[in-house]
């Protein structure tokens, strides 16, 4: 009789845990829905005079100019914003998990500033203002370079979180001062262009860019999910993760490489977009808890929602000006983040 009672309790425990995970699943679906709703809204608003009804009609039928605007201008922008948010959110969650540091983000490892330096090189030496692909290529080269440097140092010195963070911070300072140095050499026009690049912009997003950055952001996804459970273990310390059979340094190096690729896919095409990579995982963690199986998709969705709403607001609130995306993401990300930070009370987060 006693045993029966225990079994019931036992079932209870498991079911409670599963209920918690189902809740997360439902929340994920809800966020997916929110993202879709915002995407539809984003498709319906803009600087042109076409009406919301026309915009919606344009999605399903050919109504001339409206269709062209919705399909050729707004849709690529919306997709790109979602992609970038997904890329930055996911890579931020990965960095925080494998570096076991809540302050880690793509920028902690100097990836943002190395991309920036690449862009500055392209603008100053390779006519990046006209030749946009020069900027993309150089930004990409330098993100790769900085992640190789970090991985190289880690190989040599041991892939601990501390080694990587310190290397990353050193690289961040190196590349930002190199950028400043080149700006010092730049002409008036170039400096202008550099400033704009650092603000970030989605105006140049076209289908070609979407395909390229889509590959860089989405291709590593399955691998990242593959390691999600390992990330859980790694947040509890390298030693115990190792004792449980996780190849800690291997997983860490590979995930850093993958997350860097995602980051560069996100920022090379659009410029440095604020702190989505830091904030999206934290917002996700406050809502979903720290289980990376849910945290990673949640960070991706929240990142997407944040970037998309920031861009939509940025291009509509002060018509016809566009408030640079990098600025708006901070404007809406920070208050939301602070609100959650103050409000969170739940025991299991």
């Amino acid at each position, binding site marked *: 009789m006693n045993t029966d009672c225990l079994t019931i309790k036992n079932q209870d425990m498991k079911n409670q845990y599963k209920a918690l995970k189902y809740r997360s699943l439902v929340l994920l679906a809800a966020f997916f829905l929110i993202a879709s709703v915002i995407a539809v809204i984003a498709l319906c608003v803009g600087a*042109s005079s076409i009406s919301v009804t026309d915009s919606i009609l344009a999605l399903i039928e050919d109504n001339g100019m409206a269709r062209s605007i919705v399909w050729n201008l707004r849709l690529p922008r919306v997709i790109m914003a979602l992609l970038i948010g997904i890329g930055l959110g996911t890579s931020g969650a990965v960095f925080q998990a494998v570096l076991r540091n809540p302050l880690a983000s793509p920028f902690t490892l100097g990836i943002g500033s190395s991309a920036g330096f690449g862009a500055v090189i392209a603008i100053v030496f390779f006519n990046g203002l006209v030749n946009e692909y020069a900027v993309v290529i150089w930004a990409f080269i330098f993100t790769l370079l900085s992640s190789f440097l970090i991985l190289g140092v880690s190989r040599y010195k041991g892939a601990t979180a501390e080694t990587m963070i310190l290397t990353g911070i050193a690289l961040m300072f190196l590349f930002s001062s190199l950028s400043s140095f080149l700006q010092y050499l730049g002409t008036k026009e*170039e400096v202008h262009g550099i400033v704009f690049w650092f603000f970030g912009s989605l105006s140049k997003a076209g289908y070609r860019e979407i395909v390229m950055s889509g590959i860089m952001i989405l291709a590593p996804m399955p691998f990242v999910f593959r390691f999600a459970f390992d990330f859980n273990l790694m947040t509890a310390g390298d030693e115990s993760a190792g004792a449980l059979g996780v190849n800690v340094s291997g997983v860490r190096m590979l995930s850093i490489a993958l997350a860097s690729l995602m980051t560069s896919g996100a920022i090379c095409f659009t410029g440095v977009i604020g702190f989505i990579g830091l904030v999206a995982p934290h917002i996700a963690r406050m809502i979903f808890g720290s289980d990376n199986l849910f945290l990673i998709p949640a960070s991706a969705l929240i990142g997407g929602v944040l970037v998309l709403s920031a861009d939509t607001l940025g291009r509509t609130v002060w018509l016809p000006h566009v408030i640079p995306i990098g600025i708006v993401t901070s404007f809406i990300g920070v208050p939301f983040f602070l609100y959650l930070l103050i409000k969170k009370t739940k025991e299991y987060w």
Partner: protein
Amino acid sequence: MLRLLLSSKEFYPVRFFLASFLLSGLIILNVSAPGTAWAGDVTQAIVIEDAFGRKISVNMPVQGIVVLNSDVLEVLRSLRAQDLVKGVYSEIDKDGVFFQEFLDRPRVGSWKNANAELIADLNPSIVIAYENNPGTELEKQLSPFGIQVLRLNFYKLGTIAKEIRILSKIIGREQQGEIFAAWYGKKLDAIQKRFDYIKEKPLVYVESYSAFHTAGPGSGGHDMCVYAGGKNLADEFKVPYSEITSEWVISKQPDVIFKTIAWGNGFERKDRVFFNNVRNELAARPSWNLIPAVKKGRVHVLDSGIWTGPRAVIGVAHMAKCIYPQMFDGLDPEQIHKEYLEFFQKIPYQGVYISENLSGGAK
């Protein structure tokens, strides 16, 4: 006796003292030298107003100028004041062919970050810089040396003639300055007076160096558009350089599009390929085929050499001709450019400065 004193080890402090005394004497002499020289001459000071709106009293005659940007350097050449240029901005090498005769001058740092020590070494009377770059720290650093910083922009069409007169006055080339300023005004007026009868001005989208960044009021590009008789799409903007969406440009349906690029120097270009490529890329942006300007081949790419700056008048002439091909059929911007280079700059006319005109006007 002195030798004895100096060689004896005991008197080492004395030797040190003597040396430092001599050294400080030298420094004082060195620093006060310009001052004493001025005291010797009977100098007169003139008061001018610079781009900041500050009244500045400049001692005449000016005996050396350090130039922090290409615009001023070009104007000084028009005023035949090459010999006064003691030092130049470091990026001059980018315009090496155009400014060949200045390449031997010492460099003093960049247009927005000049090195006060290098400037002080050259000991000029004045430094000429843009209104906002470098910051006012330059004045603070240079005032102990008696070097004045003059802020002249030379990139706003409305004030350029005035600034030419100010500059020519302080370097004692008033006659040359008057000729230049008058020529400038005349060319601009010749274009301006044609617009008296124009009621509806064509809509113009002006894109500055970065893609999807337009030139609004307060920018040189906006002034040029207005002087060329265009109605700038961005004429009610509050920000000089604002990012805009592709969608907005399309929905505004501009009749003409101008884009400027700063890459290389038009002076060294042999053909229009580069400009044409940029123009084609612009026209090929998604859905831009819906814009009248693109449909009619009225997208034009201009070199930064004739965009704002001292040669803005040439840019304006090109733009006016692009906006009103019939009305300015007789206007030959290249002739104005040739006049400018050969008569004022005293260099041979060469280079390509604008993309090929597809709308059927003159080349």
